[in-house]
């Protein structure tokens, strides 16, 4: 029993990371119709930038702050030079190919600058070590990650729901053309969400780095997981991402607990089924 409880907590922490990653992916798609296959790359970039900041300035919180900024700068360049030309309908497949290429570039770029060595980041002192939850002891940092996940989830939900920016975002997503006639700078909104999405991914990368080491291949690995989450949540839907992430994480973790080999397979099967029978997402009623 305690095993299941602790495993669930672990799954939850894992889910929080997936959430941060998938959220950006879903946001970018929901608003800009851009399926950003380079998302995993930006996640990884965030982690590595964080590592460097930490090494230079020796302050975890600065790393958490600066790494996303760095990644977003890269995103701005990419958006300006490449993505911007391919917004709008009929461009989805271009976007896929472009971001796919971008993914290669980023992952190889990272290998070039940081080398292929496995890098790890230590949790800040006050979050290190473990806490005794009575039934079992649990890494303190992972509890922190869970909290972060919840905070971001609530914060973003509020932002989208109540802030003026949120309204603009929803408007642009709903009908970019008309939004423009009502004075919404749609292109800027799209660009901003693209960059913001990247920011979230990079943020996830830094937050995750003390939990999981930085190494080659993490980007595609996490991208696939994020894709699965987003698909299960329903492309472009934000409210459901958190639960989808939790579902995927639980399936994955408990899958590995009981049938280690079939775990990945389980997750993929889940996605394939959802895509095939509920393309609009698991939590949304079939749209007519």
């Amino acid at each position: 029993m305690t095993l299941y409880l602790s495993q669930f907590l672990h799954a939850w922490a894992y889910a929080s990371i997936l959430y941060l990653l998938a959220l950006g992916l879903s946001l970018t798609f929901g608003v800009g119709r851009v399926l950003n296959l380079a998302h995993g790359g930006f996640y990884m970039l965030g982690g590595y930038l964080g590592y460097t900041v930490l090494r230079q300035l020796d302050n975890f919180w600065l790393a958490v702050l600066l790494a996303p900024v760095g990644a977003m700068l890269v995103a701005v360049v990419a958006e300006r030079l490449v993505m911007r030309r391919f917004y709008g309908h009929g461009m989805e497949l271009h976007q896929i190919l472009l971001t796919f290429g971008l993914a290669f570039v980023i992952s190889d770029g990272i290998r070039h600058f940081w080398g292929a060595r496995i890098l790890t980041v230590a949790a800040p002192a006050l979050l290190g070590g473990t806490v005794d939850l009575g039934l079992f002891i649990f890494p303190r940092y992972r509890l922190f990650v869970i909290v972060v996940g919840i905070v971001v989830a609530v914060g973003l939900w509020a932002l989208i729901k109540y802030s003026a920016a949120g309204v603009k975002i929803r408007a642009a997503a709903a009908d970019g053309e008309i939004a423009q006639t009502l004075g919404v700078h749609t292109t800027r909104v799209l660009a901003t969400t693209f960059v913001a999405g990247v920011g979230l991914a990079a943020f996830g990368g830094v937050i995750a780095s003390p939990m999981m080491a930085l190494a080659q291949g993490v980007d595609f690995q996490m991208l696939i997981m994020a894709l699965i989450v987003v698909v299960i949540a329903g492309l472009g839907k934000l409210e459901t991402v958190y639960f989808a992430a939790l579902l995927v994480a639980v399936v994955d973790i408990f899958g590995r607990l009981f049938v280690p080999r079939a775990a990945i397979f389980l997750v993929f099967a889940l996605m394939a089924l959802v895509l095939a029978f509920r393309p609009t997402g698991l939590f949304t009623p079939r749209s007519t």
Partner: protein
Amino acid sequence: MRSAAAGRTTKGTREDDVRFNRLAAASAAVALLLAACGNGDDDPGAAPEETGTEDGTEDGAEEPAEADGEPVKVGVVIMTSGVYAQLGEDTIDGMELYLGTVGNQAANRPIELIIEDETPDTGTALERTRRLIEAEEVDILSGLISTGSAYAVAEFVSQSEVPFVVANAGGNDLARAQRNDYIIRTSFSNWQNNYAVGQWYYDNVGETVALIASDYAAGAEHMNGFRESFEAAGGEVVEEVLTPLGSTDFSAALGRLGNSGADGLYGFLAGTDGVIFVQQYDQSGLRDSMPLVASGFMVEEDVLGEIGEAALGVRSGLHWAYDLDNPENQEFVRLWEEEYGRAPSVYSVQGWDTARVIVEAIEALGGEIGDGAAVIEAMLGVSFDSPRGSFSIDPETHNVVHHVYLREVAEIDGEIHNTVLEDLGEFPDPGA
């Protein structure tokens, strides 16, 4: 990339003109292809024309290179990119370090290293090997980190009868089912180092163990090597967890291990997985209840820095340790650190030994290395005192025979290193 060895520069130029032609060819191909899709004809059969033309130019350019036979060309296919790039780098540096001590020559023939990136992809590794043998026409082949690649290359190598010195890949079968007349191994077999630890664990840690390993061939070999001697000693394996390669989260695995109630853990996880595992093991709080004993590579110098404090106290068996107390090792470490300014790893030692085997074989043959079989014969005869202790090649298995040491990760004047606890004795691979 880094300190240029005489060998590699020459290789540079030689490569360059080949490259140049290939570039020309490639661009020609592109141009042609542009034209082709301009008028997008779909008539069959025109496609292959590319291959013809550009391979023609490329090979034509190589003819003159064939003439000189003077320098000994040693092809090294090894990871210079990817997760295991560090292993490759240490190995190459080790080889160059030794070659430096003998003036980059053997029997008055300059030794020229031609390095190709092995890459994690076996296909590429195989392709590069072919290039070395068929395009560069190397006299001796060495390297290979990945066992998978080693198996793939083995068959082709024996066809072409080029002597091949495996500098790392530890798959047992290279000394058994896949044992090959043209291949020797100076590194280790997965079985060797782990078998050595089983008995020790039973005597010093406990009678039950929970095993964890990366879910691939080598992982199983490491695990079973240990299991063999451990069970022979009367121990019991109470839990066994295999995790997919490239796992980033081991909480599930740790959960099961923790639940097993074993006296301790023994495991081998490759590369990243190992680093992440040890850290999460440290966080999981199992440390106190279940000491971790590992296959040496999991906590070797190349990853130790990254695991950091978390690795302290982890014990492991391997055929070398940083503070191994013998004159060769002290000399080796000194040379290495003043040359490269970083701590050597077991891969450095393997590189060093590999180079030494090659050099001494050439010496023994007086430079007459035309016949691959003869070269292998000479290599089997080589034996010396290596930084890892006594070193020789078993003529039966073509596999190295060396001592295995039980080490513990400890802090040696501010730096984290493996320190020797005990010499477990000499272990050959039993072979088929």
